[in-house]
């Protein structure tokens, strides 16, 4: 009897283990790519049939062979680069009476603000985890290493406090799951703590304030703490600053802004803050750079890539964007008739602001206020409720940044030759310490009758290009030559010319240290008076730094693509809300600020036609589609992928190579899981991809290289952009490319190219700027840096994914001028001038269509206009969103690959369509995808080591036989225990019968 229970119990245990192992294995197989990536397993290896006569290192590491020793050099360089990026990217916003750098006698400091004990290295998102480990340097350590003595009493109190900042993204396995500002209540500062700085450590109060967003986590416009903008100063922070001020203990108060979003800083004077430094999110080593800046071992040279508004809610883009997205007014009807998930079809945002994002709004309205144009000084959009006034709205303009020294910038010459505008400018260090200076080139293009009649909006000032000097000693000069691309000054006329135009009339070009100074220079050149700087002080502008010329109206030069010769014309008419519902959306125009400023979010009902598009099924097999049999399939001629290395995209040999694939083999390629599986029959190795604008996200192979740490978590992308240093941008790219070489990645998802449409974007920290031209210029050189390593770059997210709130499936409405000059241009430089071979689409819809289903975007713009020959991939389709599962619609629109298609749903859908419906058209698209994907891979560093006689051998990951072994073990045990149980029961029956 006892044994029977024992066997029953053991059989129950093994039953549970068997179920667990079977379902667990099934789940792991579904996520095989992710499991392999986490375990650092490649599922293929190269076997060379004979001694390779040719050199098979197609892309070399600049450090020489991939080795333990060279990896250490690379790691050291990435850490050094991080420090320099932070030194050159952090922006000195205020420095009253040269409070910074600290003097040699100012070494005893007290760190205030909970963030000093919980620094924000990076917001939650993909990429490197290097900031979590032992190789991360925090603010405290960095300051101590720099020779400062920190008040440990207060620091320890912060460190042991239960208060924690959280972004509310329910982070599992980490400390915080609740949204919280994470600042201490004033009661935290006990008398004992106050004594710690009253008696000592009172040379300097260093206050660090953090603002946290993240992937899928928009910074709040109406926050859970006080119902105010999360970017505003909160009560606990006010109390803290007041306490420091009232104590009178400190000689200086320094504020560090630890945020990837532009914080509201209109309060600095009120609390007697002497200096303020925006440090962004410094990654794992950036705090060393911050410390160097504070003690004067480095001189700040960073400049803002965003406008810092006094009131973040004053940006017109906020009216419809961020948390002000709207539901269709007939939402119930929409949900009733659609089979899509409710969340994915419920929201829309109408970009009524048009082109006027960031400085393009504030500076344009400033010019119009000064010039008395377009009712610019009316109350609409005013933060004070009275007439709109620039100095009431802007705290620090785009491009702003101070230094410990002074510079004089002189415009030497401007030459215009075709598309090229060559600017020479001389910079002289007129101060007392060495430093670097940024020359920012801005232009104004005409806003005349043609533009007003045809709704061609114009920013009054526009960044054309920039360069940075080398380190200039006091008195030293350097002449910079900057070559701007006139294309970046063209305007898109979607009404009349339906293409890019160069407006006719007077053009102005100027150099300046920020957008507002540039604006004043141009206004002065136009003879305007009543100019003010950002503090409200009267200024006269510098007309000597202005160059002016005249252009004839031109609607032809940029009406064809410079890359393909394709006609550039309207493609996104259906993304304008007015296309669907007449007069439903008024776009803001500088011609009439009062009449066009969006005073409330646009309300609209989705029409039947809109709902039909929302449903996402667009594909119908063309009537003239050829049979699938018209393509050669499975004709294996033993041509490996390595034989295709270096061949032109158009080379006929590609057709022969593709003829080797069966439909099933071809159909595996669109299913990406941070890489794709090997196809050994055609010599295609397994592919691994990285992901992260500020770190490719991987762990070095300890067995191979003797070091198992994470790749570098660099400072956030907007710190990198704020360096205004193209050499640093390019170097970041090169170093990330080098890391990818060690990590075996063929391509990496970076940089982030969306716009800081509002200051609240949860991922602003991994996008460069509010300005599309700035993005264009930054990504061009950073992408080039990565691509030189044979690692391909996939900019993300194309296009319009400028907010995290409702990002999946939200319908984004805009006019074509705003889209082409904004969201599209923000990514364009990566694919065209940058040479990036991969691109990731966005989660949002363009109008009613998901971006990956927009033929206008995926085919017409990316391929036909930009001449892109790489592959296009969706953003992640894993999860539950049905709007991403219309594979035939998206594939026929031009999408090639599906990101994180764990289950191979795209493979199944495409294969079924081709086989069940004899759809040769779809097979043709599949071959095109294979061509694009494999061309990209063949010309990547992943082919290092492969030659034409190499064989790709599949490698079964060790965990798979292990899991199957466990299933077998538990099954055998189960059977065994059941047999014992049955035998025991039989014996029991015999025994009972015997007793009877």
């Amino acid at each position, binding site marked *: 009897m006892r044994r029977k229970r024992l066997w029953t*119990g053991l059989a*129950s245990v093994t039953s*549970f283990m068997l179920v667990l192992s079977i379902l667990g294995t099934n789940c792991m197989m579904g996520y095989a790519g992710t499991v392999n990536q986490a375990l650092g397993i490649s599922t293929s290896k190269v076997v060379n049939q004979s001694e390779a006569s040719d050199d098979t290192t197609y892309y070399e590491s600049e450090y020489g062979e991939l080795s333990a020793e060279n990896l250490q050099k690379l790691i050291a360089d990435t850490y050094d680069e991080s420090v320099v990026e932070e030194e050159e990217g952090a922006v000195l916003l205020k420095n009253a009476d040269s409070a910074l750098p600290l003097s040699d006698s100012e070494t005893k400091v007290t760190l205030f603000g909970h963030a000093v004990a919980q620094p924000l290295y990076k917001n*939650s998102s993909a990429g490197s985890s290097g900031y979590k480990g032992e190789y991360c340097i925090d603010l405290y350590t960095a300051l101590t290493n720099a020779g400062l003595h920190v008040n440990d009493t207060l620091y320890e109190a912060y460190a042991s406090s239960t208060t924690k900042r959280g972004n509310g*993204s*329910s982070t599992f396995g980490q400390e915080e799951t609740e949204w919280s500002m994470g600042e201490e209540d004033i009661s935290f500062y006990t008398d004992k703590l106050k004594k710690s700085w009253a008696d000592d450590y009172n040379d300097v109060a260093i206050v660090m304030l953090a603002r946290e967003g993240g992937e899928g986590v928009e910074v709040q416009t109406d926050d859970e703490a006080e119902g105010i903008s999360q970017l505003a100063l909160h009560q606990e922070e006010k109390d803290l600053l007041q306490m420091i001020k009232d104590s009178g203990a400190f000689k200086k108060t320094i504020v560090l802004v630890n945020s990837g979003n532009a914080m509201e800083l209109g309060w600095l004077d009120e609390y007697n803050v002497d200096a303020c430094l925006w440090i962004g999110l410094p990654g794992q080593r950036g705090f060393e750079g911050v410390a160097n800046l504070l003690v004067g071992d480095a001189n700040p040279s960073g400049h803002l890539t965003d406008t810092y508004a006094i009131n973040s809610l004053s940006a017109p883009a906020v009216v419809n964007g961020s948390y002000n997205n709207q539901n269709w007014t007939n939402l119930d009807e929409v949900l009733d008739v659609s089979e899509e998930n409710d969340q994915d079809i419920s929201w829309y945002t109408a970009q009524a602001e048009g082109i006027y994002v960031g400085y393009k709004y504030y500076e344009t309205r400033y010019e119009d206020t000064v010039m008395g144009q377009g009712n610019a000084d009316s109350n609409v959009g005013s933060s004070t409720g009275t007439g709109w006034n620039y100095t009431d709205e802007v705290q620090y303009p785009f491009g702003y940044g101070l230094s410990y020294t002074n510079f004089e910038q002189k415009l030497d010459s401007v030459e215009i030759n075709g598309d090229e505008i060559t600017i020479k400018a001389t910079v002289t260090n007129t101060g007392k310490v060495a430093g670097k200076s940024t020359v920012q080139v801005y232009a104004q293009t005409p806003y005349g009758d043609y533009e007003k009649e045809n709704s061609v909006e114009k920013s009054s000032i526009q960044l054309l290009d920039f360069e940075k000097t080398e380190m200039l000693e006091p008195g030293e000069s350097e002449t910079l030559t900057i070559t701007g691309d006139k294309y970046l000054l063209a305007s898109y006329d979607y009404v009349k010319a339906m293409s890019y135009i160069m407006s006719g009339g007077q053009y102005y070009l100027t150099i300046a240290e920020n957008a507002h100074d540039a604006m004043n220079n141009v206004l002065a050149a136009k003879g305007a008076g009543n100019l003010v700087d950002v503090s409200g002080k009267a200024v006269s502008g510098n007309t000597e730094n202005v160059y002016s010329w005249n252009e004839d109206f031109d609607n032809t030069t940029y009406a064809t693509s410079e890359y393909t010769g394709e006609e550039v014309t309207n493609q996104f008419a259906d993304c304008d809300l007015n296309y669907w519902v007449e007069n439903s959306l008024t776009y803001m125009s500088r011609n009439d600020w009062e009449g066009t400023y969006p005073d409330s979010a646009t309300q609209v009902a989705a029409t039947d036609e809109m709902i039909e598009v929302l449903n996402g099924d667009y594909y119908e097999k063309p009537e003239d589609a050829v049979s699938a049999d018209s393509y050669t399939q499975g004709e294996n001629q033993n041509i490996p992928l390595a034989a295709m290395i270096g061949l032109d995209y158009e080379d006929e040999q590609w057709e022969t190579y593709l003829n080797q694939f069966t439909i099933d083999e071809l159909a595996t390629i669109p299913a990406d899981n941070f890489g794709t599986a090997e196809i050994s029959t055609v010599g295609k190795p397994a592919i691994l991809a990285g992901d992260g604008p500020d770190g490719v996200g991987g762990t070095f192979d300890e067995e191979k290289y003797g070091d198992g740490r994470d790749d570098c978590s660099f400072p956030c992308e907007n710190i990198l952009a704020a360096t205004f240093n193209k050499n640093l941008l390019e170097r970041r790219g090169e170093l990330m490319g080098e890391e990818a070489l060690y990590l075996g990645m063929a391509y990496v998802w970076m940089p982030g190219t969306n716009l800081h449409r509002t200051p609240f974007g949860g991922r602003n920290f991994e996008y460069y700027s509010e300005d599309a031209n700035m993005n264009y210029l930054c990504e061009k050189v950073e992408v080039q840096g990565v691509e030189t390593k044979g690692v391909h770059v996939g900019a993300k997210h194309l296009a319009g994914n400028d907010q995290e709130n409702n990002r999946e499936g939200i319908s984004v409405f805009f006019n074509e001028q705003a889209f082409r000059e904004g969201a599209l241009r923000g990514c364009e430089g990566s694919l065209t001038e940058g040479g990036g071979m991969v691109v990731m689409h966005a989660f949002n819809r363009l109008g009613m269509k998901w971006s990956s289903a927009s033929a206008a975007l995926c085919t017409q713009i990316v391929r036909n206009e930009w001449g892109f020959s790489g592959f296009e991939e969706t953003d992640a389709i894993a999860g539950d969103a049905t709007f991403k599962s219309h594979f035939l619609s998206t594939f026929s629109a031009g999408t090639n690959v599906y990101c994180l298609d764990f289950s191979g749903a795209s493979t199944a859908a495409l294969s079924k369509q081709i086989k069940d419906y004899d759809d040769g058209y779809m097979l043709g698209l599949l071959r095109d995808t294979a061509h694009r994907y494999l061309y990209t891979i063949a010309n990547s560093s992943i082919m290092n080591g492969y030659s034409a006689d190499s064989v790709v051998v599949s490698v079964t990951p060790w965990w798979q036989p292990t899991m199957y072994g466990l299933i077998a073990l538990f099954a055998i045990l189960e059977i065994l225990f*059941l047999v014992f*149980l049955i035998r025991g029961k039989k014996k029991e029956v015999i025994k009972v019968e015997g007793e009877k």
Partner: protein
Amino acid sequence: MKTILEKKAVGFYFVVIAVILAVASLIRFTIWAPNHHGMDVIIIAAIVLGVVLDVFLMIKENEYILILAVVCYSIGAVKLLTNSVGSFVDAIQGINMFGDSSQVGNILSISIMILLSVLASIIAAFLKQIKEL
């Protein structure tokens, strides 16, 4: 009733605990799942079947039925966890992409309730359900 219970051994009460936990988790799951894209008929069927089998066990002791009940509850619990991998990935990475990280607490609590049913059933399997006279 008292007479019936007097005959029952400790194992019986573990079966009762398993049923109570299973019914409670079933109610929680059926309330939670439709609102969070978590509905899975296999999970419901497995738990319902487990409950039915356990109710049968409360009337008549049977080793095979007990093992089957463990299998049913195990399928329910493990299926819920594997269905929710995306939410766990999001929660670990601190992002909102593959699942719904805000539901990790609910997913875990429901799973734990079902796993406790599994545990109670396994313990019951090692014990007598009817006192030996």
